[in-house]
């Protein structure tokens, strides 16, 4: 891996972000009455896609917005332009990363357009998202935010539309906490524009159509597990190398569960591990033998315990050292292309680690990179990362490259051992973790008891 190649800026990324930043500022005051600066930003967005197939529709949307007669189709066109810019930035950053890692990546296959599910639910979501954009983040109030509740509940109950439901629920939770917008001390301009724009995309008919699924067989060697959570959802993604007849491939296996906001930290694993034996295998540092496991073109295994059985011991660092450099990566589905989606497994060695105010940095020849994304649901701490000598992590990008450690080799009691951020995926292995698990199990029990008495009446 040539980490020095990540130090130089990637052509066009800063320019794309400048245009996006202008548009995102428009959303702060809302799309209803753009002022001079906002008009210029909207025109810049139109200009940025003027030689693409989006040109006509975006130009019309910009014109209508400036004229104060914006409709839902115009909102969709503006979002398409913003998403195309960030999609292009994603592609350029990923190409640089692949070049630096010497990683080959399969091309995206042509996929047929899928059918439309739940159009009435999508329409309700689009309508709320348009109202939000018209009000602007400074214009949100409790009424407007609570209008999302019904749509969210209905989307979560429809498995095919769950992705949109989970996104809207997390987004609405943030809006709710900072309501009313007029008194917010600071506005998370990029983040809320991102979440809003992705929701508008997913609410378009066909965006959530089922993706074609193939199958794959071979020996699965876990590298590490990435954990995501918001108040009402948690997801673990295992990054792994799959040894197939055609050579090693990088794949991911996800498991997600709904939750409530008081279930946090080490307590969340128990919601997940019952649905995927892979979490236990990872904690034990074992491989799994897969037979005809469903897989998407994007390299996501659709995990089923019926297609997997426990295999031989397989240590993450050994997998990373032997197989990672030669593994083929999967392409990213077009609608998911956004720099936040970059999460590429890498092995990092030979760095000098430094820690200052809880921020750890690794200095490599030609690049100093910040460590980010540690969580409290496992035993990996900033101090252990700062003392480490090798790291399996995910390369990410949020305005600059970041490294999220999944596991490190670090001295503990004068012996070098591997410490994994997701070590407790299969079960907590120390007293504090076990206590947090027991407390969370107790919370679930209380809520289930309350639900049993009150919910079905």
């Amino acid at each position, binding site marked *: 891996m040539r980490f020095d190649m990540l130090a130089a800026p990637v052509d066009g990324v800063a320019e794309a972000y400048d245009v996006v930043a202008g548009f995102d500022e428009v959303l702060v005051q809302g799309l209803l009455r753009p002022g001079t600066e906002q008009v210029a930003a909207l025109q810049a967005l139109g200009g940025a896609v003027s030689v693409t197939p989006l040109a006509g529709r975006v130009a019309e949307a910009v014109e209508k917005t400036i004229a104060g007669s914006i409709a839902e189709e115009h909102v969709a066109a503006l979002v398409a332009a913003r998403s195309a810019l960030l999609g292009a930035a994603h592609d350029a950053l990923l190409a640089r990363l692949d070049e630096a890692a010497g990683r080959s990546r399969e091309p995206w296959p042509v996929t047929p357009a899928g059918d439309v599910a739940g159009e009435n639910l999508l329409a309700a979501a689009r309508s709320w998202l348009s109202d939000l954009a018209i009000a602007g983040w400074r214009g949100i109030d*409790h009424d407007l935010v609570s209008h999302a509740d019904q749509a969210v509940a209905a989307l979560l109950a429809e498995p095919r539309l*769950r992705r949109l439901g989970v*996104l809207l629920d*997390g987004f609405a*939770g*943030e809006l*709710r*906490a900072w*309501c009313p917008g007029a008194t917010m001390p*600071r*506005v*998370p*301009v*990029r*983040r809320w524009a991102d*979440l809003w724009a*992705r929701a508008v995309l997913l609410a378009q008919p066909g965006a959530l159509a089922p993706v074609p699924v193939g199958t794959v067989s071979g020996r699965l060697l876990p590298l590490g597990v990435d954990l*995501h*959570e*918001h108040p009402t*959802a948690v*997801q673990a*993604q295992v990054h792994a190398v799959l040894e197939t007849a055609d050579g090693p491939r990088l794949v*991911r*296996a*996800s498991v997600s569960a*709904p939750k409530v*906001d*008081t*279930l*946090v*930290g080490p307590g969340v694993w128990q*919601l997940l591990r*019952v*649905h995927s034996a892979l979490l236990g295998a990872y904690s034990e540092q074992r491989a799994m033998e897969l037979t005809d496991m469903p897989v998407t073109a994007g390299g*996501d*295994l659709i995990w*089923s315990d019926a297609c997997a059985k426990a295999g031989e011991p397989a240590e993450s660092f050994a997998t990373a050292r032997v197989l990672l450099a030669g593994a083929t990566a999967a392409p990213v589905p077009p609608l998911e292309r956004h720099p*936040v989606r970059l*999460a590429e497994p890498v092995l990092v060695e030979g760095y000098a680690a430094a820690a200052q105010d809880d*921020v750890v940095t690794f200095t490599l020849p*030609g690049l*100093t990179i*910040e460590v980010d994304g540690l*969580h*409290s*649901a496992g035993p990996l*701490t*900033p101090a252990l990362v700062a003392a480490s000598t090798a790291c399996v992590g995910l390369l990410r990008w*949020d305005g*600059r*490259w970041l490294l*999220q450690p999944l596991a490190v080799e670090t001295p503990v009691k004068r012996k070098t051992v591997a410490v994994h951020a997701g070590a407790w995926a299969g079960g907590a292995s120390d007293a504090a973790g076990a206590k947090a698990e027991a407390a*969370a199990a*107790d*919370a679930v029990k*209380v809520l289930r008891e*309350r*639900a049993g008495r*009150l919910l079905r009446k």
Partner: protein
Amino acid sequence: MNAAQTPPWEQRSTARVLSPARPRKLAKVPFVELADGRLQGVVSSGSDIERVYVSSLTAKDYSFHCSTNNNRPCGGIRSGGCNHLRALADEAVLQYGIARVARYLRADVADSATTGGEVLSAVNAWHQPSAGAPVFSRFLRHLAYLELPASTEPLAELQWFPAGGAVR
């Protein structure tokens, strides 16, 4: 070379907007939230396992409400609140931290304040019966999350929600 410059919070896709709620024991107060302009939630009755109290405190004018889920008024209402509202405020402080509760209620609490009771004293709550039903239905919605199925299909959008917690 030096580490690339950290972009400002406003320009980060994964900027942390909320600190995660803290775990707490749920037996007495199974549900508390800051929503719809209110501190609101549900307190289990000490005497009847089938009964819960629905309590809320409005941020706008500090009026409060407390009744059973069957809409019978709470018998313990005094000026400044009732025991259920106090329990609710205490648990809200455990779950969200006093700063977030005070900010949401726009309550002027002392820097040394640590409990929900102190938040209540700071706002001078006054009783005004309103409907408990919307709060109770928020609670039922909350409980319903645990009835929804898990899935092994990837949720790409959760890349915007990295797990956080005590560590940065």
